[in-house]
Each structure stands twice: as C-alpha cells, then as structure tokens.
C-alpha cells in the first residue's frame, strides 16, 4: 500500500490538490488572489512530494510504470506549471473562475503524468484524453473573446480527429499482435504491412499533439486565441509530456520497426523545420510568432530522435528542460505585457528597452536561448540534439537543421531589434511586475543561464536513461 502510494507520489499529491479546488467552491467565495496563492502552495506541495525518493516499479498489472527518469520528468512538468502560473499571476487575479482554472490545469497535468507513466496503449489513450480535454475548456476561458471560442473549437475538433486516428492505429496494432502492453509489443512486432500501417496512424496521432508538419494547422490559431497561460501550457508542458512519451514509444515499444519510423521522422523533421521557420518569419502577433517558433523547435527534437542513437533520448529530455525555461521566460514577458497593456503585436514592442529594460533583457535572453546562441542553455540543447542526429550519420539532415538555425535567428533578431533598436511611435508605459511574476522571470532566466553552463542537469538525465 505504502509502496503503491510512493510509486504514484506525483499523481496522488496532484489529485489531492485538484480535490481541494473542487471543495473550495463549496465554501464562501474568496478573492481571486487568495485562490491563486492557494494554487501555488498546492503545486509547491506536489513538487515537494515528487522529490520523495521512490523505487522504480509498476502497478495495475503493468498499466502504470514508473522509474527515476519518469519521476524526474513529472517533476519537470510540475515545476514548469508552477513557473507559468507564477508568471501569469496578474491574469489569474483578474479572473472570476480561478478555482476552475486550477482544477482543469491540474486534471490535464494528471493526464500527462499518467501518459508518461503508461505501460499499455489503453492507459496511454485514456491519459491522453484526460490531458487534452480540460485544455479545450481552458482555451475558452477568456469568455468574452470570440477568438477564444474559435481556439477552443479548433482544439477540440483537432484533438477528436487525432484521437480517432490514434484509436484506429491502436486497434490495428491490437489486431495484429494481440496485446496492448509496452513490454510485450516489441517481441510481436515483425514489420508486417498491418503493423506498419498502425505505426503510421499512431505516429499521426502523436504528430497532431506535437504539431509536427503537416499536422500543425491548428496550432497557430489555438495559440493566438487562448489566454497566454494556456498557450504556454500547450506549448511547453503538454508538448514536453508528449515528447517524453514519444521517446518511450519510439525507443522501447517500436524499436523493432526503427527502419520505418526513421523514414517518417526524417521527412517530417525536415518539413517541420522548414514550415515552422518560414511561417514564423512573417508573424506580427507575438503569441503566434512563438507558436510557429515552437513548431520549428519540435523539428530539432525530431532530427535527434530520428537517428535512433542512444544519445538522442537524453538530448531530447534535456532539450525539453531547456525549452521549458526559455519558452516560459519568453511567454512570461509577453503575458505580463499583454495583461498590463493588452498589447501583443511586435510593433508595440518597439523601444521596450527604454521603458522596461529588465523585461527586455529577460525576453532577449529567452529568445537567444530559443535561437541557440551561447551562453544560454539553448545553445547546449540544440548542439546536443544535432549531435544526436549526427550520431546516426545523417549529416545532410543535420546540415539542413543547422541552416534552419540561421533562418530562425533571423526572426528572433526581428524581436530583439524591435526591443533595442527601433523608436516607438507610442511607447509602452513602464510595466511594474508583482512578486510572483518577478520570481517566475528570475527563475526562468537563471534556468536559461545555469542549465547550460553547468552540466549537472544533463549528466543527471544521461545517467537515468
């Protein structure tokens, strides 16, 4: 019993947190700020609970599997959620339905936990739905905005569609192998046409969630229409969780079919890099801009994973951590400015350095990290991803990705130029940050600088894999 609790430490603590928010509505209505503070506290508690050492193991006849690596990945996600909520403190305070926001976010995170812990396609599918559906509701949480409704509709339709494809793949796989368990599947995979079809369908399901080209079309509209915290959640936390389980799926479950998924990954990696970058070049809305840049970032992960090299998993997990800091840093600044002034367009950011030097530096460093420029952690993350790609001797793909880094730098520099070099027509006012926002910014900027220059994070990940 105790052992089961220990194995599910993340899930149990998070469930308790979610239940608290269910109960809290029963009592007297309190100020939004109070709820927000309660949320931070509960999430901090989950983070602490996640640190309790626990042995690797499995539960429910292998449906739920955990290890030190999985446990660490869950802690990354919890930490990321806490960071992004702190960064959107201002948005939370103004909201009328804060307990619901927390409840839905916690449910979705719970889904992600089960997702990366799943030991069978059944659990995988259930967890995926739990992780996705609350987000569709959250997309529409700025109730008055028409764009938000559009985002929610697109989100729900695209996820329903991808779930359908995923289920079809799962059923084909079950039909040809007779099992859904991750441990039994590899032995029964023989590369028959049916299984390869199932692989392609499953991959499509993943591709939707990871916004891999050509299944990315929903991404930009949903990111633009949703409130900033939800966009951040989608692009950082939910995508991070998907990358983790994607690694497991490729490197454990579908290892025997490597010859097939290798081709899929190489093609989609190149397409994702190209399309993500080309579309990001012309974006004027910063949320949309970050959406397309995050599509391109996934392209780099695919370059690494396609190699099938041992290095690739560590590099991908490390990159998710780096990406978490960089993207939350960037979104935090965008969110703070959007909440304070309502402005989200690139032209509004002209001359921001004059009025808000600290926010400008935070945004610039985060963007440089996303672009992969030292001394930020993004440089190391990208370097290791490309290194993993090169380990599979796919130098052409790596060269293509390296050239794409130059293209990406072009559009990140557009923002930097607006911040530092251009003269504003109507300068933004000086934006004062509140304590939680400042904490989130400091932590993410520190993370952007520290996780790269000091090798501890990478070495821990590499040891656990």
């Amino acid at each position, binding site marked *: 019993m105790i052992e089961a609790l220990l194995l599910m430490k993340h899930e149990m603590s998070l469930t308790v947190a979610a239940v608290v928010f269910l109960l809290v509505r029963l009592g007297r209505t309190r100020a939004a700020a109070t709820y927000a503070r309660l949320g931070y506290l509960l999430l901090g508690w989950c983070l602490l609970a996640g640190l309790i050492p626990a042995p690797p193991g499995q539960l429910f006849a292998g449906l739920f599997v955990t290890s030190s690596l999985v446990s660490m990945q869950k802690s990354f996600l919890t930490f990321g959620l806490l960071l992004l909520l702190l960064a959107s403190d201002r948005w939370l305070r103004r909201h009328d339905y804060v307990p619901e926001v927390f409840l839905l976010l916690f449910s979705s995170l719970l889904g992600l936990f089960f997702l990366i812990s799943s030991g069978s396609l059944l659990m995988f599918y259930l967890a995926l739905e739990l992780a996705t559906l609350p987000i569709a509701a959250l997309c529409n949480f700025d109730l008055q905005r028409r764009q938000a409704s559009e985002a929610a509709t697109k989100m729900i339709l695209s996820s329903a569609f991808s779930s359908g494809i995923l289920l079809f793949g799962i059923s084909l796989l079950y039909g040809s192998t007779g099992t859904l368990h991750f441990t039994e599947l590899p032995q029964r995979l023989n590369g028959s046409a049916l299984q390869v079809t199932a692989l392609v369908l499953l991959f499509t399901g993943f591709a939707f969630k990871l916004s891999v080209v050509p299944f990315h079309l929903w991404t930009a509209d949903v990111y633009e229409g949703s409130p900033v915290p939800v966009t951040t959640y989608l692009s950082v936390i939910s995508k991070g969780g998907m990358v983790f389980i994607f690694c497991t799926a490729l490197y454990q479950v579908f290892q025997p079919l490597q010859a097939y998924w290798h081709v899929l990954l190489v093609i989609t990696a190149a397409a994702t890099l190209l399309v993500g970058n080309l579309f990001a070049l012309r974006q004027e809305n910063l949320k949309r801009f970050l959406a397309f840049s995050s599509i391109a970032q996934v392209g780099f992960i695919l370059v690494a994973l396609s190699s099938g090299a041992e290095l690739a998993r560590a590099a991908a997990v490390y990159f998710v951590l780096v990406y978490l800091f960089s993207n939350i840093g960037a979104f935090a600044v965008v969110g703070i400015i959007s909440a304070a002034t309502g402005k989200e367009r690139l032209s509004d950011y002209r001359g921001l350095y004059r009025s808000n030097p600290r926010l400008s530096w935070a945004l610039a460093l985060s963007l440089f990290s996303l672009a992969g*420029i030292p*001394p930020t952690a993004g*440089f190391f993350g990208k370097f290791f991803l490309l290194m993993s790609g090169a380990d599979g*001797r796919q130098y052409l793909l790596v060269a293509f990705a*390296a050239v794409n880094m*130059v293209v990406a730098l072009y559009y990140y520099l557009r923002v930097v130029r607006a911040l530092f070099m251009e003269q504003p027509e109507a300068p933004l006012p000086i934006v004062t940050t509140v304590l939680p926002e400042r904490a989130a910014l400091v932590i993410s900027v520190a993370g952007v600088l520290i996780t790269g220059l000091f*090798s501890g994070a990478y*070495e821990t990940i590499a040891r656990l894999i």
Partner: protein
Amino acid sequence: MNLHLLILIPLLTAVTIALWGRGQRAALIATAGAVVQLGLSVLLYLTFTAYRQHHAGEAFVFEYRHVWYGPLQIAYHLGVDGISVAMVMLTAIVVLAGVLMSWEVSYMPREFHTLLTLLGAGAYGVFLSLDAFTLFFFLELAVLPKYLLIGIWGSGKKEYCARKLVLMLMLGSALVLVGLLGMYFGGPRSFSIPDIASSRLAPEVQQWVFPLLFTGFGIFTALFPFHTWVPDGHSAAPTAGSMFLAGISMKLGGYGCLRTATHLMPDAAQQYAPTIIVLGCIAILYGSLATLMQKDIKYLNAYSSISHCGFVVLGIGLLTQTALHGAVLQMVSHGLMTALFFAVIGIVYERTHTRQLREMGGLMQAMPFAVTALFLAGLCSLGLPGLSGFVAEATVFVGGWQQPDLLSRTAVVIACSSIVVTAVYILRAIGQVAMGPLRGLVSPHPVSWAERLAVLLLLGGIFLMGLWPEWLVQLIQGSGPAGALPDGLTAAPVEAF
C-alpha cells in the same frame, strides 16, 4: 600561467560594468579591465618564452582540462602555443585601443562597454581553447554583442548591416558545427584538438569535413565569395566595433582555419590547397580592385581588409612553414593596422561628420596627429619596409616561392602585383584627406588624450613588429600544423629579416 584569468578578467569586467557602470564610470572600468588584460597577455608572452626555452618539444603548454559534459566527452580545455600567444597579445592591444577610443560614447555607455568587453572575452576564449566544443562556444558567444553593438550604436543602414553580418557569420558557424560533428563521429569521439590531431582522421572523413570547417571559418575571415558582410558590417559599426570586428573577429576565422581545419586534417589540407590558393588570390585581387572604386573611407578600409585577409588564406593554402608563419604574421599585422585605420577614421569623422573622401581635404593642417597616423597606417598597408605589413607579406611571398609548382609561384606573383594596386588607392586616399586646401572640417575640437593613447598603442605595435620581427617569429616558430607540411620544406629562412 593561469589561462583562466584571460577569460575571467573580461567576464568580470563586463559584469562589473553591467552592475555599477553608470555614466562615465563604464569607460573607466572597461579601461581598467583592458589594461589588466594587456598586462596579463604580456605576462603570458614572457612566461611562455621562458617555459619554451626549457621544454621545446611540447605542442601546447599551460594546459588546463576540466571535464564539462562527461558523457559526451566534452571538456573545457585551455592551452596555448606560439600562435595563440601572438593572437592573445593582438587581442589585448586592440581591446585596450578600442576601449580608449570609446570614452566619448554617450548613448547608453554602460551597455556599450559591457557588450564590447564581452566581445573581447569571446575572442580570448577562441584563441585559448584546445577543445573544439569550447572553441565553438566562444566563437558563437560573440554573436549577441556584435549584433547589438552595430545595431544600436552604428551608423547608416545599421540594422540591415548588423543583421547581414550576424546571419552570414551564423551561416559560417552552422558549417563549422556540421564539420565538428563529422570530425567527432568520424574520428575518436572527442572534441579534444590534441587527441584528434594524434589519432589522425581517416582520409574519407577529412575529405568532406575539411571544406565545411575551412569554409565555415573562412566566412569569418572574408573568404571569397563569402566576403560580402565585411564592407557593410565594418562600415556600419561604431568605431570601436569596427576595430574589434576587423582587428579581432576576422582573425577568429583565420585562426580557426589553422587550428582546426589545417592542423587536424593535413591530408585534406594538401588535397584542397590549390582551391584555397586560388580563392586567396581572388580575394587579394578582387579586394584591392574593389577598393579602388570606394568613395567612403570606411568602405575603403573594409574592402582593403578583404584583400589583406586574402594573404592569410593564401599563406594557409601555400602550406610551407614559412608561408604559414606569414599567415599568422599577417593576422597580427592586419589586426593592428586595420584597428589603427578605423581608430583614425573615427577621430576624423568626429570632426568632419563625413566619411566621403571628396568632401575632405587638407586635414593635415587641422589635425596633424591623426592624419600622420593615417599616413603611417597607409604605408603599413602598402607594405613599406620597417612597418609590420612588409614583414608579414614578404614572409608569405618567400614561403610561397618555396613551393616549386607553377600554381604557387603564379599565386605569389599575382599577390605581389596587388601591392601596386594597394599603393594606388592608399596614396590617393591619403592625398585626398591630407593635402590640398582645407575642406570638410566641421567641429575642430582637439584629439583627446584617450584617442592619442589608442593610436600610439597601435602604432607602437606596428613599429615593434616592423622593425624587430624577430621576437614574433621566434614566438610562433615550432607552432602550428606541422603535419600538413610536405617534407623538406619545413626550414624557415626567417634570417632574411
């Protein structure tokens, strides 16, 4: 000697400026830091030569190795040979001169000096690294400062030029990155330069990695046809920025070609030598001919930089010990000379508010100090004996003539003939600026002591190298890619000087 200091001091200086460098204090702190760096580099020279006398056989000395990313065999690995010491000294001199030239920067001086100092730190890092990953890290570290320095404090089409420069250099980095990865997985799975050198990469690997690395680093040193960032970038940058870019950043490329491409892939270096020689010659000729057409004095110096850096590429391509020494000497000489040029152009521009040659004239009467310095820089550029340019270029020619084949000798003849073109544009430009009736002077304030000091420092370096090249030649003697050289051509007749 502790090599960390040379990276730590600039980093600490940058942090100090960022935290406490309000107003005029920024320049003060930056200058103090630069003086310490120059002191350290001289100390490095002294300890290095002293150490060399007792331990002649070691390739790299003062090594420090700290495992950085253990699972990936990446180490923070520093060490120097004679070439690195020469480049470090060049960097220290140019950094100090650049900082002295920037005392007058009034728009956001704190940010300016922080970025300028960071740029220097990146250069030291590249010259001191013995691990290809560390080297690449420091090479890319300069991207952010370069972009902001040109984009914020530059002039003219500064935003366009900053972007063009950064993107082209990033393209170079991308090629270097792929090349480094190819070297890592094609070789001993290590980025350590001594390890890769001793394990000797397979010829098939060398064959495709060498062009990537050489072109990648070549972009930094204005290798034809990737030279187009040089004129735009240099002319748009603020004075100190131009000095750093032309004096130090372009040398990162030449140094990278030597240290990684030629040093680690001797077979490929020989195989591609003809191509490199031809590209070097094109850069020399094309650069000098293009300079003839320039009307803007900053563009003039930028195009002549392409021509002068062609000598570096040519020296590396000729593959004799003497020619390689010539390439290194040319890097040092061009670094000092071009920094001096840009410094003087900065001084003149402050007083004329124009860079168009035909709008200036007779400035010798108005500012004799600056124009004399310009004159000396010009003479150095056209290779007058007694100044550093002569030593460097003559060494390349002598080294090239040692190669008996037709291509090398033709290349030497072509490169020699470019000096005539250089004389034409230099003398014409200086005549226009210095002689004739006084024109173009707008604000005749005197040259400040900081500016004088910067100019004298650079002039001192040029004369020291020109009149007494012995010490520099001895310093780089025995360093560099000996494995790439054909047998029987290693004897270096430097006694000529």
